[in-house]
């Protein structure tokens, strides 16, 4: 049998095969097999309870009693032992990541989210105006929905199926709206907390990974202390991301929610300097979570870099701060030092940090800011939107530029020596490499140079953890299923593990670590397979006409006017109105219900010969345009699509005199019903009856039938024509 199949599904196939092939002669064994099959099917369709696995175990024992086992029992036993985690995961998460258990197959957005948020559920809730409930669902996987709603890199939107029709659903921002609304109405609440269990965990670093782990640990009843070297919470959220993208209040309010769970924050405390591992252990801390981030900048390695580093003139309006790294620069600004870095600033790098540094410089009042990047715009790792915003604000770009030397007059920086580059393709690599063009040297005038070419983990103070291993990239080595380091009881996540990465990855890592720390304390072995995201429920889809589903468009994000954007740190994105948010949420196609197998399309087109379902987005073999409105033109509401849908995504129902065809709430067709002249039973819509009549007209012309009768009345009538 195919090993790539989900083991639950594979076992069901095996067992039904055994039962139908008459291999199981003994009545008792047959009964046991049928009972096990029933339990397995319940696991596969999400109807199982906690005791299902132990019940199956007990039933399996019956194979080995009396006459001995014919092989079925030992097969089942080995699967249940070897693949136990997957079976357990089906029960706990309601998610079959292999997508073989149809009812449990997850949506692409949820699988793309590093924190595994149940996106279709919360979008539906927001669409219905249930913001607080949506926030409650999000916070089961991500304790910082407001922060992520503003700054997430949204891998979910990359996978959004709606993008195959028009544009992805604005998943990211809807979270921020719901969080803001819930917070403002006082409905942003913490879930009930377990009573304190007397165990202490120390979290090092109050960034997204640390906050996430603290939140889940505190909910589980652990006493958590967060040690943070900065005077503020949030880590890179606070000192890396500029305020015009993420206002401080947003971080403060969400951190306050975590603090209210009893998490103790020690600011201005550097681990290894202000507090030692020994002291913490003596205080009774038994588990440690390292979320120290990646706060050190890579050096440019250019002549003059060291010499002019941080050389600020007395009057910065006359000349700049010299050479500074972007992490330090952004941190200084975030902590309140809003001095202008210089008049003409050059930023070296092409990532989001470079863009942040450039836009921050503008807001501080520099005359001109140029981003020097070795490759071209299309190779820039920064977000396309961020680059566009920077351009709108007046940031200049100098592509194919390799810096070679920091120019200076001995006291201050005067410029940056550069050489032009050209891109060549190296063998065995997809990435284009810049190589210098001989003799194309030139000088860019500048009095401040900000380097933004990447960060790495600052290992200072981490020597205390002697058992922790480090990777070649200078990050902490962990087992990714549980985020445990090579030292027992020490866990790590966030940028310290991944290298500079995203907020949402750090949050996901923090959550996994919290679960692992709980297992550590309870002496439960750590999982071998990565945990799959949890599907909490199957929210009823929102009903709407096909024309609405098609005509709703992703709204443009309105921005602060350009003048104010350039000179202040006010939030640049102004957000959506409530109406926009509710409508945007309704654009979701509910991929948690419709798994886009395309069976309905095939049946309508190939079997029925009607072809009313124009769902190009799920039909790669026949790339037609998607238009839900077109269905009603030819559909006869026969219901064959609904009868064959494996997950009740496309349904047909009869309500107030109409037969209605719906795909995840989208009303594709509605037709008036005709009724039996005798008993008033439903016959179907005229269009459907015409379809049948047209097919039978050549054999049925002799019919002298009067009126229309249902099949039950027809049978009665033919039994007793009087």
């Amino acid at each position, binding site marked *: 049998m195919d090993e790539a199949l989900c083991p639950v599904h594979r076992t069901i196939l095996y067992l039904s095969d055994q039962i139908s092939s008459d291999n199981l002669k003994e009545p008792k064994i047959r009964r046991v097999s049928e009972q096990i099959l029933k339990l397995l099917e319940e696991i596969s369709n999400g109807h199982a309870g906690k005791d299902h696995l132990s019940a199956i175990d007990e039933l399996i024992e019956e194979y080995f009693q009396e006459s001995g086992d014919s092989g079925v029992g030992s097969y089942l036993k080995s699967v249940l032992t070897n693949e136990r985690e997957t079976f357990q995961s089906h029960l706990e998460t309601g998610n079959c990541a292999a997508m073989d258990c149809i009812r449990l197959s997850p949506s692409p957005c949820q699988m793309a989210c590093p924190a595994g948020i149940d996106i279709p559920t919360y979008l539906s809730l927001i669409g219905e105006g249930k913001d607080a409930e949506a926030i409650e669902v999000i916070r089961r996987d991500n304790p910082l929905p407001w922060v992520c709603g503003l700054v997430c890199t949204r891998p979910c939107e990359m996978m959004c199926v709606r993008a195959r029709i028009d544009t992805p659903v604005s998943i990211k921002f809807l979270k921020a709206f719901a969080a803001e609304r819930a917070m403002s109405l006082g409905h942003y609440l913490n879930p009930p907390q377990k009573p304190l269990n007397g165990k202490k965990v120390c979290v090092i670093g109050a960034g997204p990974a640390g906050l996430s782990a603290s939140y889940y640990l505190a909910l589980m009843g652990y006493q958590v202390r967060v040690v943070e070297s900065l005077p503020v919470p949030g880590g890179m959220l606070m000192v890396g991301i500029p305020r015009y993208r993420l206002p401080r209040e947003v971080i403060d309010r969400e951190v306050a929610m975590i603090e209210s769970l009893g998490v103790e924050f020690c600011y201005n405390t550097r681990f290894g300097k202000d507090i030692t591992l020994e002291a913490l252990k003596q205080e009774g801390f038994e588990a440690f979570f390292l979320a120290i981030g990646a706060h050190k900048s890579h050096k440019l390695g250019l002549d003059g870099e060291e010499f002019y580093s941080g050389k600020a003139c007395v009057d910065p309006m006359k000349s700049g701060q010299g050479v500074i790294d972007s992490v330090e620069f952004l941190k200084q600004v975030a902590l309140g030092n809003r001095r202008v870095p210089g008049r003409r600033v050059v930023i070296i790098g092409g990532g989001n940090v470079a863009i942040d540094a450039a836009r921050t410089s503008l807001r501080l009042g520099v005359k001109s800011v140029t981003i020097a990047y070795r490759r071209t715009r299309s190779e820039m790792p920064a977000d396309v939107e961020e680059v566009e915003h920077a351009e709108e604000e007046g940031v200049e770009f100098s592509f194919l530029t390799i810096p070679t030397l920091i120019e200076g007059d001995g006291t201050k920086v005067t410029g940056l020596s550069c050489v032009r580059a050209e891109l060549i393709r190296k063998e065995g690599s997809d990435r284009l490499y810049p190589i210098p063009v001989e003799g194309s040297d030139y000088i860019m005038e500048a009095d401040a140079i900000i380097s933004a070419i990447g960060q790495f983990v600052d290992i200072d103070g981490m020597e205390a953890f002697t058992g922790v291993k480090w990777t070649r990239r200078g990050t902490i080595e962990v087992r990714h299923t549980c985020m445990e380091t090579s030292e027992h009881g020490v866990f790590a996540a966030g940028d310290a593990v991944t290298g500079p990465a995203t907020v949402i990855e750090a949050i996901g890592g923090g959550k996994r670590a919290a679960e692992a720390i709980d297992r550590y304390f309870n002496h439960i072995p750590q999982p071998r397979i990565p945990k799959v995201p949890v599907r909490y429920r199957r929210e009823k889809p929102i009903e709407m006409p096909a024309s609405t589903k098609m005509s709703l468009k992703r709204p443009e994000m309105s921005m602060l006017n350009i003048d104010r954007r350039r000179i202040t740190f006010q939030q640049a994105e102004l957000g959506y109105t409530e109406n926009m948010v509710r409508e945007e949420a309704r654009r979701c196609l509910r991929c948690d219900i419709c798994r886009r197998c395309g069976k309905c399309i095939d*049946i309508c087109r190939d*079997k*029925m*010969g009607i072809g009313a379902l124009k769902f190009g987005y799920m039909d790669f073999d026949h790339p037609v345009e998607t238009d839900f409105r077109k269905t009603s033109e030819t559909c006869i509401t*026969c*219901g*064959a699509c609904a*009868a*064959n849908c494996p997950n009740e995504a496309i349904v047909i129902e009869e309500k107030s005199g109409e037969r209605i065809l719906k795909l995840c709430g989208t009303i594709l067709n509605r037709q008036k019903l005709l009724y039996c002249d005798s008993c008033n039973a439903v*016959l*179907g819509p005229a269009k*459907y*009856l015409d*379809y*049948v*009549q047209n*097919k*039978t007209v*050549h*054999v*049925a012309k002799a*019919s002298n*039938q009067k009126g229309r009768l*249902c*099949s*039950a*009345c*027809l*049978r*009665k009538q*033919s*039994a*007793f024509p009087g």
Partner: protein
Amino acid sequence: MSKYYLFQDVKKCIGCHTCEVQCKSNKDLPSGPRPCQIIQVGPNLVNGLPRASFIFMPCFHCEHPWCVSACPTGAMQQRHTDGIVFVDKDLCVGCKACISACPWGAPQWNQESGKVEKCDYCKDRIDQGLKPACVTTCTTRCLKFGKVKEMTEIKRKRYAQHIASPENSAF
């Protein structure tokens, strides 16, 4: 017309529905579909006494079946060897066109499988030389299955007996 005929001796039938039960259990059907059905007519007063009759309604296996014409997928078929009309479940998509088309209400809807069920004279049993399931358990033996010719004999004999009976006799 199929070359078989399922004859019900209405006079003998007591309406016990055993045929229906046996049919459904043979085909392993959930509640809902009834490939054969006993239709009760009456009771009506006949000579001051209440009388009911029970009519057995399977599929008639028409010569030109409307259901076969109506089926868009080719699931509903007529076996050319003996004219039995049956549904190939693998091809059925559940559009119910056959149900709408049949003037006798023979094709039945199986809610659980989302497909159509229909009397096929238990063709798998017939092919093994057995009788249809309904016939095998008929308590009064009023159901008889065989070639059309044999079946007509019963009616003919009975009619002859009827004419020859003392009340009707010319003697």
